């Protein structure tokens, strides 16, 4: 991929599911090392936009390139390998422990399992390593999702409402981590109901309504 070209380039992107428009013509350019927050009411299209950027839904019309992969004609599996996804529903197997979830991810990625202890420590879950994911609190589940992403070290981080159910300490932790990964050149897209309250992050904020970008503020 050309280093000067944007990591994300969408032109009149439309996503239809069962004939219903989830995105109705989005134009968007995102550069490497950028942080973007996508806000909007429920059903505005925030999650659909993130899923489109991750190759998790197909583009119905318009055009788009993410991480060098054409969303219409490219290999979406290859795109998925380049992105990291943290969903608000939970991003792992509930009946496996935190450590077993990360071991599965590490083995799938061909990463040494020695890294697991490091990332668990990084997200503050060392003491809960042997706890089943379903028994973790909402905040701890978010941290486990982050540990999964830290193992992967993707080019693009897609975080779907990561601040939901987090206390102030959890929010600060997320803000610090996002700042770190943006600093090393990753592209981070975060969906949230409201603009970020963070004093340390200064993201570009997109506002969606009805599947359209209705606001863009840097």
């Amino acid at each position, binding site marked *: 991929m050309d280093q000067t070209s944007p990591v994300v380039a969408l032109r009149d992107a439309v996503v239809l599911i069962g004939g219903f428009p989830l995105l109705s013509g989005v134009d968007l350019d995102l550069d490497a090392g950028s942080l973007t927050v996508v806000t909007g009411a429920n059903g505005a299209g925030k999650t659909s936009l993130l*899923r489109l950027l*991750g190759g*998790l839904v197909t583009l119905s019309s318009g055009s788009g390139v993410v991480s060098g992969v054409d969303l219409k004609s490219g290999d979406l*599996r*290859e795109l*998925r*390998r380049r*992105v*990291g*996804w*943290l*969903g*608000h*529903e*939970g*991003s*792992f*197997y509930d*009946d*496996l*422990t935190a450590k*077993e979830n990360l071991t*599965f*991810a590490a*083995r*799938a*990625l061909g990463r040494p399992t020695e890294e697991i202890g490091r990332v668990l420590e990084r997200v503050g879950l060392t003491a809960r390593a042997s706890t*089943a994911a379903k028994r973790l609190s909402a905040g701890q589940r978010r941290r486990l*999702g982050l540990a*999964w992403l830290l193992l*992967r070290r*993707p080019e693009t981080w897609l975080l779907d409402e990561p601040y939901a159910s987090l206390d102030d300490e959890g929010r600060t932790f997320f803000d610090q981590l996002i700042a770190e990964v943006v600093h090393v050149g990753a592209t981070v897209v975060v969906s949230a109901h409201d603009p970020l309250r963070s004093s340390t992050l200064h993201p570009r904020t997109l506002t969606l309504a009805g599947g359209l970008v209705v606001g863009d503020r840097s």
Partner: protein
Amino acid sequence: MIRVALLVAGKDLRIERHSRVLLWQVLPFGVTALVLCGLALGATHAGHSSAAPGLFYLVMLLVALLMINRAQVIEGSPGTKASVATLGLDPAGVFLGKALALAVELWLTGLVVLAGSVLFLHTALTGTLRAVPSVAVTLAALAAAGTLYGALSGGGQGPATLLPMLSLPAFAPLLIAGERSFSASLHGGSLWRWWLISLVALAAYLALGILLYGVLEES
């Protein structure tokens, strides 16, 4: 592909070990269903009649439908699906892994239900033991077909009746071959011919799954 298959199978079996669904829900259900089927026929006659192999496979069919659904549901939450999709696992390996884990679960359940048929339906022990290899192949074929049809029916997200409606026509030849083979083990007859049919079906469903599982997952 084999590495991914072993990884996925290990993960699915570990999930079953932790959740104990197989141990505390599926096995008691299978044994209860077998006993009830036997009672319907008259317990003292069921094992000596031609019904026992059919009852065994009827119970295994019900168990298989439960386990196929369960195997798909553990992958089914949108967040898990999305996260696992970003791992870039080879779909053929995922299919083989899920089919292997399901086969292991069906083999374990099959052994318990076979023991139950000896105890409760009074099937001959030697004939039942002779049937074990053909039962293993038939259940492996059910696992391969079930994994494929589980994905086809929406991966645990579709209507509850979709999986049985779609899969029963595909399972019917396997069940007939398994039942004939089990009957031959108990009462004499051409054991190998039916066993061979199950073996060919197993190979066919494995090949189909390797080719199509990725397409089904995408759709």
